[in-house]
């Protein structure tokens, strides 16, 4: 079943993810980042991409740990010296800053997992075809070609295996030579076959005149409303951010973590923005319950 957010016009989903990305870079504050992480996790669960997230988990943890530890090692700035290690000052500021960068990285990576789930190649293609029609054709051909080449390479290696030639057995230099031969066969074969694809494109009038593009998605009223909603809250958050709210200053003097009223207000907007997909799903769910 498709969720309601996935049924929005690709522009809406795309804008949501781009703006969310900018928020995770701008709003460097532990509370905001933690909130962001929670929202992104819930979004991942809602759109059934938790499995993909788990595949990325190891990479995410390792790279964030790396950043978390590296910052205090190279950065000695800050007033609160925790301890001195081989004449190297480890400060609370550097730890906090490293931690926040690491957290921001995790949130962004987790966001890309759900982005991949929701922005299918088809939607991306549609968005691009509006701006760069020629590029869209190229992208479409590439989208078909990469898996096609993979399938062909599998085919080549299985056929060669039946001849007793394999890249898995024998001395290394022979294996390398065979591997290169495979690639050579793959390329000649693909070029040869691509001539036919090119003919088929030409036979369907490709390159004759101006190309139009098929609109797979209609921009409806609710897409417009969703855009207004997103942009409104984004601008509110942004104006708050430029007034110094929603951001933890670490250097030169670390602020208190305490949130002021201005911060709280921005936080509410922040939640309303990131919670948009969830609000949509909840709204849909309740409407369905009432109707049934």
């Amino acid at each position, binding site marked *: 079943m498709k969720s309601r957010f996935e049924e929005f016009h690709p522009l809406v989903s795309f804008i949501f993810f781009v703006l969310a990305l900018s928020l995770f870079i701008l709003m460097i504050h532990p509370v905001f980042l933690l909130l962001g992480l929670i929202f992104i996790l819930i979004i991942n669960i809602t759109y059934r991409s938790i499995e993909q997230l788990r595949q990325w988990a190891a990479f995410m943890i390792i790279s964030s740990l790396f950043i978390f530890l590296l910052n205090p090692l190279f950065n000695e700035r800050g007033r609160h010296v925790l301890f001195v290690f081989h004449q190297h000052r480890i400060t609370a500021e550097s730890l906090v800053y490293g931690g926040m960068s690491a957290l921001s990285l995790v949130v962004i990576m987790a966001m890309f997992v759900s982005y991949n789930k929701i922005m299918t*190649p*088809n939607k991306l*293609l549609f968005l691009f075809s509006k701006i760069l029609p020629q590029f869209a054709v190229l992208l*479409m*051909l590439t*989208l*078909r070609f990469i*898996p*096609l080449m993979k*399938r*062909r390479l599998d*085919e*080549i290696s*299985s*056929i*060669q*295996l*039946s*001849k*007793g*030639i*394999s890249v898995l*057995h024998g001395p290394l230099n022979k294996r390398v030579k065979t591997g290169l*031969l*495979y690639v050579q*066969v793959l390329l*000649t*074969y693909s070029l*040869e*076959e*691509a001539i*036919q*694809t090119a*003919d*088929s*494109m*030409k*036979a*369907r*009038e*490709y*390159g*004759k*005149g*101006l*190309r*139009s*593009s*098929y*609109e*797979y998605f209609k921009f409806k009223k609710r897409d417009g409303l969703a855009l207004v909603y997103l942009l409104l809250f984004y601008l509110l958050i942004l104006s708050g951010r430029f007034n110094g709210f929603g951001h933890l200053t670490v250097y030169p003097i670390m602020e208190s973590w305490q949130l002021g009223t201005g911060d709280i207000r921005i936080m509410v907007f922040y939640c309303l923005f990131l919670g948009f997909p969830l609000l949509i799903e909840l709204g849909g769910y309740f409407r369905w319950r009432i109707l049934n």
Partner: protein
Amino acid sequence: MAYIELKNVSFSYPDANQPAIHNLSLQVEKGQFIVLFGASGSGKSTLLRLLKKEIMPHGELSGEILLDGGSIENQAVNTGFVFQDPENQVVADNVLHEMVFGLENIGLSTNEMRSRIAEMVHYFDAENLLNRDTHELSGGMKQQINLASVLLMQPDILLLDEPTAQLDPVSAREFLNMLVHLNEEFGMTIILAEHRLEEIFLLADSIVLMDKGEVKVQGETRQVLENLWRNPPFNKYVPSIPSLYLSLGGKEKLPLSVKEGRSWTQTVEIAKKDRTGWAEITEEILNAQNIYFQYQKDDGYILKELNLSIRKGDFYALLGGNGSGKSTLLKLLAGVLKPERGKLIFRGKQLKAWKNKSLAAEIGYLPQNPKLFFIQDTVEKEIQDTLEQWGLKNEHEVAPLLEKLGINHLRHNHPYDLSGGELQKAALACLLLRKPEILLLDEPTKGLDPLSKDHLADILCKLNCEGVSILMSTHDVEFAARYASKCGMMFQGSITSESEPDAFFSGNFFYTTMVQRLFRSRSDQQIVTLEEAVELCRLRR
């Protein structure tokens, strides 16, 4: 004035010794259905391509090509073209993208595209395919999508270059029927080049035999067939029902279809067939027991509960629809893929216990796409490579073998410059050098014209007599009926029926020969091949 008119057209490719089209004149009226046939390399494809200016080949052209009374260069006649290979003419990764591709190119508005697609999808009954990925479709479906996306451009003329060459009999029939509908209901002018002649001769208004770039014979189907019959070797092109009629010396109106043939067979006497004794049962060399296989975990099983046994000296033909798992089975038997469950036993030893190299020495596997068989850039090098790899000393056998296969003159060519039949023979030569015990051939008759097919059959039968066992998958029912010693039907991942050709084809409705269909109601014994029929039947005086 004819709708399409070629006047003394000659065409030669750059650097070619002989012209591909030589002084050819042809007239096609509006709304006609024309079938072009002839050996591969006789210029059918070139002729079709000359009729569409966008894909006109480069080379030297003389003579005049007129469309609708004007020169083809400045005539805006909308021509659609469907190519042979279902896979390569696909542009997009998704069916809907594929369908709109041409419409986008001519700059239609989305609304117009929507209405055209709605109509076409409905006509093709392809609603459930729209959001599928193109590579998931079977060859038959792909070819229908290709036809649909060409038809969406609303062509006046439809050119098709062997569109059913890679389809199974049922899909091919469906595809051809669709063409007939288009021709009859919309008056679309259709020119079709084809090897699969049994069915389409019926449908055509006029048929054209091409030979060495010239029109050899042309005209109404019956006249042309009678003419061909008197001119060997072209009598090979005459389909089996008229062939039977003519070889029995029939003098009246030539029957073309099973329907016309049936009434005529009422006047035929059929002798009793001598039951030749059962062939002796030889040792089993390849055995598959309860095989399960799937490519990906969630894809479902391609093969399940499959059992197969090949005995020494068998010539086994495996039939079945596109995507029924024939190719997969052959790969498993060749040891290229491993079964998920079940046992594969080759000469009393489990297949996985064999070393890859010693297995490859015993089993010769000819893939469906022989292009990928060649890893070197000339036939000669490939052969040398094979000799070297296997440490073979029988270099003196190479030339006679190539001679026997009729490809000795092509030794120094790049494999991709060979025609489909030649390519197959070249790959076969490499296989035969290592003297395999069993040959696994994946659709060896695909895209071959009748003459090359006969040639291939001769080679295979000779090998078979020398004791090589053969297992081949094929869509070619007539070929299987004539040469195979045993036939099997693949369906839903297992072999659902298996027996000698006679018994096998008698139970089938689609997967059976024209001759069998003809005599289906007539006799209590089974007549399956043309040769049998010619031998047994006599005209009643």
